Every structure is written in structure tokens, then in C-alpha cells.
């Protein structure tokens, strides 16, 4: 077994290229990889990014900082409303967007990580969010075809990692992080604490190490 590559936040973020699709974990700021987001804001020039994250941060916090820099071309999310500046950017035509029901958003990321071409869900059928989507009756109930959501890079936060890159999450900070860790070409995890192998019980590993490419120490637990 080889240890996961440990790098600084700046080194890890240098792998993000202009035009990339970047997944960012967190429900609001809870479980958001704030150390990596800070590095993306402060040390990277990557532009025209497509951000896949449940919220686009908050005004001036988390991904909200990247939005203020005008580096997000498109955002795919379930709830832009947490950041009034994101709503304003959409209405001003400065930010392209795709809005998905939260369960569809989560499952589309899971599907990508699981190698599936999509799935049918009854959620959203007959609503504005069904526009442009294939609808199909399954057992008499209208379902929508939803496509997988993949990324070039995923940024995730875990409370604890071991030196192999196994991840353990705390409380409701888990949310989208394990799904995103599986759905990107390059997964960068930040962890509040990095422990020797064996420091996380195998049963408590929520993201097995094979999903994690680069590991960064986080500035907070």
C-alpha cells in the first residue's frame, strides 16, 4: 500500500485549470472545504469554471468569494438562494446556471461515481425543471431521465483522514462530500486531522482511499 500524496493547498489547487468542472462539497458552509476554496480564491488564476455545489457559498464567504472574482461561468446547484449575490448574477446574465432538485443533484453525482449513464426519477415531473428532459411512464407514474454529473476536480472536506487517504466525516458535515469524492477525475481531500493507518476503524471509513488522489491538511477540523 502506498500513502496518498500529501501536498499543500496551493500545490493541490494548481491542478485546477480554466474551463474545468469543479465539484465542491458542503451543505452551505457545513462540510465545505474552506481551506481549498481559500487557496482557489487566493492562489489560482483558473477562470470560466463550472461549479457543482449545493449552494454557491454565501455572500463573500466560501464559494461566494470566487463568484465575486467573476471566475464562475456556470453553477449547478439546488439552492442558489443562500447567496443573494449568486441570484443577482444569474438575473444580470453574468452567471449561467442549472437548478436541480436536491435529491436529483445528489443522485446524479452518485450515478457518475458509480459509472451509470443516468436514472429515472419521479421528482420534478410536470414542473418547470422538467423542461428539455425525457419523460417516461414507469408503472403509470411520469419519471424524468436525469443524466450523471461528473467533474474534472472534486474538492472535499473530512474531519479525519489516514495516511492512505481513507476519510471519516463528522455529523452533518458528510452531506455531498463522499459522493463528489467518487465523481471526479481528480479528487482533492482536505482533512482537519491526518492520522496513521489504522487510526480510522475500517467500519467508520465513509470514503475508501481509492477515491482520493491528493490530501491536504485543513485549517480547521
Amino acid at each position: 500500500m502506498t500513502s496518498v500524496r500529501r501536498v499543500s493547498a496551493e500545490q493541490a489547487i494548481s491542478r485546477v485549470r480554466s474551463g474545468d468542472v469543479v465539484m465542491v462539497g458542503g451543505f452551505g458552509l457545513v462540510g465545505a472545504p474552506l481551506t481549498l476554496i481559500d487557496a482557489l480564491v487566493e492562489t489560482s488564476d483558473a477562470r470560466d469554471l463550472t461549479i457543482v455545489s449545493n449552494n454557491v457559498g454565501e455572500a463573500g464567504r466560501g464559494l461566494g468569494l470566487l463568484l465575486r472574482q467573476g471566475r464562475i461561468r456556470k453553477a449547478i446547484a439546488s439552492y442558489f438562494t443562500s447567496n443573494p449575490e449568486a441570484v443577482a448574477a444569474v438575473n444580470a446574465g453574468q452567471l449561467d446556471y442549472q437548478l436541480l432538485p436536491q435529491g436529483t443533484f445528489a443522485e446524479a453525482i452518485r450515478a457518475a461515481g458509480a459509472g451509470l449513464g443516468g436514472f429515472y426519477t419521479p421528482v420534478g415531473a410536470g414542473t418547470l425543471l422538467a423542461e428539455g428532459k425525457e419523460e417516461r411512464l414507469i408503472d403509470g407514474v411520469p419519471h424524468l431521465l436525469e443524466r450523471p454529473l461528473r467533474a474534472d476536480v472534486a474538492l472535499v472536506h473530512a474531519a479525519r483522514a489516514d495516511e492512505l487517504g481513507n476519510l471519516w466525516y463528522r455529523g452533518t458535515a458528510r452531506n455531498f462530500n463522499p459522493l463528489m469524492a467518487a465523481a471526479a477525475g481528480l479528487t482533492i481531500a482536505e482533512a482537519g486531522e491526518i492520522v496513521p493507518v489504522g487510526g480510522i476503524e475500517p467500519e467508520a471509513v465513509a470514503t475508501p482511499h481509492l477515491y482520493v488522489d491528493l490530501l491536504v491538511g485543513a485549517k480547521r477540523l
Partner: protein
Amino acid sequence: MSGDPRTRIAARAALELEPGDVVNLGIGIPNLIPGILAPDAGVVIHTENGLLGVGPRPAQDAVDPDLVDAAKLPVTALPGAAYFDSADSFAMIRGGHVDVAVLGALQVSAAGDIANWAVPGRDVLGVGGAMDLVVGARRVIVTMTATTGAGEPKVVPECTYPLTARGAADVVVTELSVFRLREGRLVLVELLGGATLDDVARATSAAYEVELG
């Protein structure tokens, strides 16, 4: 029932919950229910950001930044609680494992259609988990004031706002009354807070039947 209309609505909605129910609470009026439920009510609260077994709000000095509900407000976890990721959480919801969703709405139609996520011409770009919840939960209880701030009825013949889902509502609780959807019929079953049949008629533009208790 006393107090402000929102608390009265939440208190009446809480009476719909049965011991053993797994319940998801929306933002706003539904989130008043934990403060109203008796501790021995036997209701298990699910929050879609990944926790089954939500406990009371913590004291200010006991707030855990990794522990919030869907409104992003601090909560606690009860003994026996479980954490899970967002895909599992919505699998529970869509899969019919959450018994009850209590949520607010902008409009409910006579057929039980719900509109609760967008107002035309208004800067709202968030759907969150609302569509998943109304489709997946086995019972859907809508809690809302009977009319808008401008006095427009919210129980309407057809929703004019963007739909969340068709035919999803089972119960509608306002400060004036309780409606039930029975096989596609909208039925007024209870008057609340001293409201009269005339009060409900004035605040409701949908057609409904009356079958008081």
C-alpha cells in the same frame, strides 16, 4: 390554541403526527413543531442534510458547527441518531421511508397541487429538497397562512405559481381551518381559532366540500 397564527398552525399540524412517524420538517412554520411536540410524542425527525434523530436546539455555548438542520440552524442529535450522506438521505425520501413531510407553500390547488419554490418575476432560484419531499413522503402536510400579506387566497382553484408537484398534498393547515384531500376532493374538516365557515370562504378561492367533524 393561542399565540400568533404561525405557532397555532404549527401546533395543529403537530397533532397530525403519530408515535413512530419519521417526519421531515420544512423551513419556516414546520420548524416550530419541535418546540411544540411533547418529548414523549415518539416522533423521529429526519433532516435531508443527513441526520435521522434530530434533537432540540442546543444552548448557545453548546453549538456544534458540524451539526445543523436543513435551515442551516444548529441542532443536536438524540441517542440512537444516524448520520448519512445526501444521496442516502434522498433515497430515504424518494423511497417512501419518510412517513410525513410538513412544509410551507405559496399555493395549494383544489386537486392538492403544491407550489412552494418560485414566484414568477421574483429573484428566487432555489428548490432545495422540496420536490423530492412532496413526491416521496407518504403523507404531505402543508402549513401556511390562509392568505398572502396582500390578502390573496392561497388555497386556489389552480396554482398560478410554478408547481412543486401535482396532487401531492394530503392535509392543509392554516390559521383558520384544516382541509383534507380525499380521493382528489378538497374537504374542509375543521375550523380553528374561532374561525367561521364565512371566514374560510372569504379566504379561499378554491371550491371545497364541508364535512365538519
